[in-house]
């Protein structure tokens, strides 16, 4: 009697469902001031919570809230201050001595020792560690314990940005615990010394943290103000917005500008637009590898493109919220980045057309342009190019494919963006793309030499001079066209006090509830 059974089940299920629907009317909110729980949401999850084993921004955020670094850079002044290290001295340009703080304990109760520092840095330098952010540590040669509370870092070559790296992407891991549980165990139950302690990791869903009540006193970041912190992964942007509006989460970011405008009308929310260190730029196939007789080999064509694009209008109408036009290929507030004396390209379509004519392209040409994010920005660029006769075809790719194509010389114009790993030093930007590496499409010996000199000199004045030389040459030859810094729109509960920084690292430990 399948029908009767079926019908019976259906009735029961129906009653149950109706019950569920009614019961669903009243549900407690899990986020917010009342529960002292700050829930923040983003779209992706780091592949591994170990801070050296992911290169996602979401991982950087967790790292900054859960781990401490040897030094601390004050985001307001840019000065380096003591953190896990109380003092540091350069013995010579390739040897750095540090004194560690007493009385710091990891979340599992182990005290911080020089062995932890030495283990962390020596481990991440081994190939077996398979860390994904090599560039952040490969300036180190080795680290050794020199006393009960001192360590010495040996550098491969002089590296003046070392202090900046030690205050950012180089958190300290607990040696004994890490050795015991291995990388797999560590990523499931990570342990640091930072203001928040991870209490649960649900792959694909959330990471829950509580305030580290035993956080060492006197830390420049201070004890966390909010008791509980939770990171939720919500892939869909509209769902994130809906969660924020209903109080399911307290904080979201990277809100598209038009949505941010909508959210501003909600009195229970605060919307902040802040500049970030991320800079968008066009990188040109200077050597003409992507197509035969590429017009881009001609400096006049590259300059024509630079004159054809109204970057100011793009900032005003598309990017908005704190973005600025950049003229040198770096973020202007980074050490060594300057646009003083660097050739600039004003919006001048007539001049662009004249330059194209001079270069032998009176009727323009066809070209490909690859991009991997902010499709609307790339499309705006294509529109400007078309206005002067350059017919660009958009290849919109995923980042891995984009980077592969760029490295293999299969892209004529790449719409790149770079956030410098939040490192406030020009070595984290220009060098990646113009120091002869795989992503250097120009391979200009003059630029390479200048950047190398800048990256390895210990004299700030020399560094500045060398970087200026490189940046000037890149701009004069129009190897790349810097567009503008990117803004980020943050939207959060009006109950929350939160300050955004240009390095795109939300410091939740510093956030608090309004009284």
């Amino acid at each position, binding site marked *: 009697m399948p029908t009767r059974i079926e019908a019976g089940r259906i009735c029961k299920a129906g009653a149950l469902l109706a019950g569920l629907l009614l019961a669903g009317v009243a*549900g407690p909110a899990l986020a917010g001031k009342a529960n002292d729980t700050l829930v923040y949401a983003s779209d992706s999850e780091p592949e591994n919570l170990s801070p050296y084993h992911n290169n996602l921004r979401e991982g950087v955020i967790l790292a900054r809230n859960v781990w401490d670094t040897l030094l601390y850079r004050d985001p307001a002044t840019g000065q380096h201050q003591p953190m896990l290290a109380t003092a540091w001295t350069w013995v010579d340009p390739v040897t750095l001595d540090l004194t560690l703080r007493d009385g710091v304990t990891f979340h599992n109760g182990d005290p911080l020792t020089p062995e932890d520092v030495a283990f962390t840095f020596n481990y991440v330098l081994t190939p077996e560690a398979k860390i994904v952010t090599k560039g952040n540590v490969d300036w180190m040669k080795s680290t050794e314990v020199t006393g009960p509370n001192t360590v010495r870092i040996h550098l491969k070559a002089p590296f003046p940005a070392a202090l900046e790296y030690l205050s950012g992407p180089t958190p300290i891991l607990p040696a004994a615990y890490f050795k015991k549980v291995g990388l797999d165990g560590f990523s499931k139950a990570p342990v640091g010394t930072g203001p928040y302690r991870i209490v649960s990791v649900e792959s694909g869903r959330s990471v829950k943290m509580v305030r580290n009540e035993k956080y060492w006193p006197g830390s420049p970041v201070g004890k966390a103000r909010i008791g509980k912190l939770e990171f939720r992964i919500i892939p869909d942007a509209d769902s994130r917005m809906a969660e924020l509006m209903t109080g*399911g989460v307290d904080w979201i970011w990277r809100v598209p500008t038009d949505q941010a405008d909508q959210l501003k009308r909600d009195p229970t929310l605060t919307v902040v637009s802040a500049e970030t260190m991320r800079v968008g730029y066009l990188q040109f196939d200077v050597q003409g590898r992507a197509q035969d007789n590429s017009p881009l080999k001609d400096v006049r064509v590259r300059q024509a493109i630079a004159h054809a694009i109204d970057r100011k209008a793009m900032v005003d109408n598309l990017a908005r919220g704190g973005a600025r036009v950049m003229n040198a290929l770096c973020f202007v507030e980074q050490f060594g980045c300057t646009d003083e004396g660097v050739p600039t390209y004003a919006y001048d379509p007539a001049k662009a057309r004249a330059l194209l004519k001079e270069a032998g392209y009176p009727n323009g040409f066809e070209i490909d342009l690859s991009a991997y994010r902010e499709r609307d920005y790339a499309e705006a660029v294509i529109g400007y190019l078309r206005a002067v006769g350059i017919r660009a075809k958009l290849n919109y790719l995923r980042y891995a494919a984009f980077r592969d194509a760029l490295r293999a010389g299969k892209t004529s114009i790449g719409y790149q963006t770079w956030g410098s790993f939040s490192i406030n030093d020009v070595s984290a930007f220009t060098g990646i793309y113009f120091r002869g590496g795989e992503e250097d499409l120009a391979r200009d010996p003059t630029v390479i030499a200048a950047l190398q000199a800048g990256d390895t000199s210990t004299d700030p004045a020399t560094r500045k001079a060398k970087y200026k030389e490189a940046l000037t040459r890149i701009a004069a030859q129009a190897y790349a066209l810097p567009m503008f810094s990117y803004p980020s729109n943050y939207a959060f509960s009006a109950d929350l006090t939160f300050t955004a920084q240009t390095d795109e690292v939300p410091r939740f430990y510093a956030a608090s509830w309004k009284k």
Partner: protein
Amino acid sequence: MLGFALRRILVAVGVALTVSVASFMLLHLSGDLATAIAGPEATGEQIAAVRAQHGLDQPLVVQFAAWAWRALHFDFGRSFYFPEQVTDLVAARMPVTLTLGVIALAVALLVAIPLGVLAAFYRDTWLDRAALAISVLGQAMPSFWFGLTLILIFSVNLRWLPVSGNATWKHFILPAVALGYYAMPAVMRLTRNGMLEVLSSDYVRTARAKGLPPRKILIRHGLRNAVIPVIALAAVQFGFMLGGSIVIEAVFSLQGLGQLAWESIARNDFPVVQAIVLVLAMIYIGLTLAADLLNALLDPRLRS
């Protein structure tokens, strides 16, 4: 009946084998696996080490045999992206997708069958037309849009239900409705057509002539016979829903298999993609087989 069942099972095993070969080949269509695992910054030496470690230097047939043997023991290797075993990942996400699928199917049947019956009974009236309109709408509406509309109404405006996640049963209501609506039209039409056929049959006419109340005719005589093809369809729809819940899982941030599949494709995490394809295919094959056997049991004519 036994012969039919055996033949049917044999076909299912054949399909399963084909799917497993296809899902294995998936891995090898995408370029050098060792390079993908070792990552973009690996040296040639590291890539060679990875190749040896994962047995990627063996002939394809040997690799397939090893993989199939391990797959038989539910060992799908390690995820390229997460530091986890694929089996653990899939097992952790499976309940979410199954729960969603079951509730969605229940929702679909709950609405579609009564609606189909009523539409057939009140044929060519406003009720019939309304039922048709609902079903057309269900097929025409993109499920992400419907899902977002539900969120807007029930979560943002009315604040009755949570927006996303799978913390409690309440979190499943909206996604199940959104997903169920996608399966509903087909079931509704099949029920309606089956009912129409049954209602015009001789025995129903006889029942009417005997003066049985319409409700009894509908349920006892009509639905009982009309529901047979619906069983098969429901099984197929359930399979579709498991695979098709990708969009719904993304909209409602349900961390199920669909979401995992989508993200794994984006991350080139082939062992995970492979396992999900295989698992979903097996479920689908199993359901179809079960539905076929059930139908054959109910209707002897199907056995030939």
